């Protein structure tokens, strides 16, 4: 059974953290993952940096640029993660743009993920229809769960289609924005959260984009199964490097 499924079955709201591999320093990847797990984080998205991250706001853009400058590559990330399952048990998801994966070779990329013990992928610029037609078979062959995004503008019909193709959770983008844009949630978000809840989807939802503190985490998880924090954690890393990760996690829940 995929670790993502096991985690989703737990009777609690899940905290998932995103960070960009190779940031702040090239070799921080393993330490950050270990510290996050030690401090009770339920799931981790490891960002594979890309030169042109068009769904990301300035914080993640800058961390990606810095990571690439530090020398991060797909191959190096796999190298860093090769023994990660000796020390880490929570689900690990690689989040990245499609082009670097294409250049590595989709099948080779998926095979490597399985070998290392990666549980899933989030690829913001691989739309559900392309995935369904061309890549789903390969991803599933290597036991990988692919996670799709929905937004307040996504129609009910399309959400149903995404729910059908999904086999883990749905990444619910909190508002019409790139990553890191909001500080609190207003009525529009609440209505959207409630609309999705009322659809009774087969896949649980985890909210991302704009979750930065205890308040937004609590709001988002009122209806959803969990929440993902990215930019706020990157800002923490920028300020404190890899120290005080425990304080950051405690401040969220």
């Amino acid at each position, binding site marked *: 059974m995929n670790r993502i499924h096991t985690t989703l079955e737990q009777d609690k709201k899940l905290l998932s953290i995103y960070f960009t591999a190779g940031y702040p320093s090239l070799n921080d990847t393993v330490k950050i993952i270990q510290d996050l797990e030690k401090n009770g984080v339920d799931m981790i998205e490891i960002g594979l940096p890309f030169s042109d991250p068009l769904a990301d706001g300035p914080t993640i853009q800058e961390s990606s640029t810095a990571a690439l400058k530090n020398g991060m590559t797909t191959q190096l990330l796999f190298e860093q993660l090769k023994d990660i399952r000796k020390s880490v048990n929570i689900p690990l998801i690689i989040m990245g743009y499609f082009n670097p994966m*294409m*250049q590595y070779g989709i099948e080779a990329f998926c095979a490597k993920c399985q070998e290392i013990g990666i549980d899933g992928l989030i690829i913001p610029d691989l*739309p559900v229809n392309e995935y369904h037609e061309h890549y789903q078979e390969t991803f599933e062959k290597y036991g990988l769960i692919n996670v799709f995004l929905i937004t307040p*503008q996504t129609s009910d019909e399309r959400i149903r289609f995404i729910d059908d193709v999904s086999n883990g959770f749905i990444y619910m983008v909190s508002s019409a924005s790139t990553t890191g844009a909001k500080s609190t949630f207003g009525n529009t978000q609440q209505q959207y959260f409630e609309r999705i809840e009322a659809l009774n989807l087969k896949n649980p939802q985890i909210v991302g984009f704009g979750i930065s503190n205890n308040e937004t985490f609590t709001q988002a998880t009122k209806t959803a199964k969990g929440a993902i924090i990215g930019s706020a954690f990157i800002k923490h890393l920028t300020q404190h490097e890899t120290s005080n990760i425990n304080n950051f996690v405690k401040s969220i829940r």
Partner: protein
Amino acid sequence: MNYQVNEKGYYGDFGGAYIPEMLYPNVEELRTTYLDIMNEPSFKKEFDQLLKDYVGRPSPLYFAKRLSEKHNTKVYLKREDLNHTGAHKVNNTIGQILVAKRLGKNRIIAETGAGQHGVATATVCALMGIKCIVYMGEIDIKRQAPNVARMKMLGAEVRPAKSGSKTLKDATNEAIRDWINNPVDTHYIIGSAIGPHPYPDMVTRFQSIISEEIKWQLKEKEGKENPDYVVACIGGGSNAAGTYYHFLDNPNVGIIAVEAAGKGVDSGESAATSQLGKEGIIHGCKTLLMQTPDGQITEPYSISAGLDYPGVGPLHSHLYKTKRAEFYSVTDDDAMAAGLELSQLEGIIPAIESSHALAIFNDKKFKPEDIVVISLSGRGDKDLDTYINYFKL
């Protein structure tokens, strides 16, 4: 072989819509409506009227007598440089602003490199009284000060793209991010035959007026509709797509694409995407693009800001792969020399982009009886500083 986009948005292996879900409703709205809108009689009427009275179309097809003598073949120039705002770009912005109006959008965003597409967009927004925001790389803003001033004078807001390499590809990223953040009221006017489907096809159709006119103009002058060759420069490839469009299915018309080699294809400072690129994803489409082995998009170089793009439109990748088009790459030096040659033989100072197409005579020998139509995509006013510095004028 088919050169039209298929129902899934592909030209052969290239194209598609590799976009984040946040953009799906906007792109889908466009995909499901653009052909119907473009086929409405009222749309056609307004589009044709504006092209005639505002842009100044048809642009002349000019027989370049002295240039023809020099190169011992029959050269016609399609004078897109005589359009309002000085280049072919306005054909597309007129079309897209009319689409945006019919979609009920009241805010326009655009990306620009050299500023030509930014100016063409700011122009049509002024014409229609619609708010206009143009993203431009911070470095390009410094390099292209006159065009920045033109956009401001036309009432547009120019926002610097400060991410990544701070040039055209980053301005495009910023425009896409803006669209993600403004999903309801905004239309994104992409300036080249790139981006997610339906953009490459929509832009190509708006630019196809170029080859439509070439056909009847050539008929008048030569008694036949089809030249032996059509030649155009390619950055993203919108003037080329428009120049080729009505000849794609006629194998008797040779199609020639000229890319910017910069300081040489193997110099590390080049924008010759077909030679240096590999299949990948850029700005929402699968196409040839310049990238590292790890899949990071690299920064191209050309003396011409309009050709300084790391990708090429998906139609052109298809034309390259199927060998329908011959691809050549021309260095900065050869392009500059060709620009000077046209100036002194014909009294026309071309944009440096177009000078690349004019440099084709170094690489390709035509027969004396061949009819060669070259797209003179823009005028050289915007490039005077570059010409001055280069030739020490």
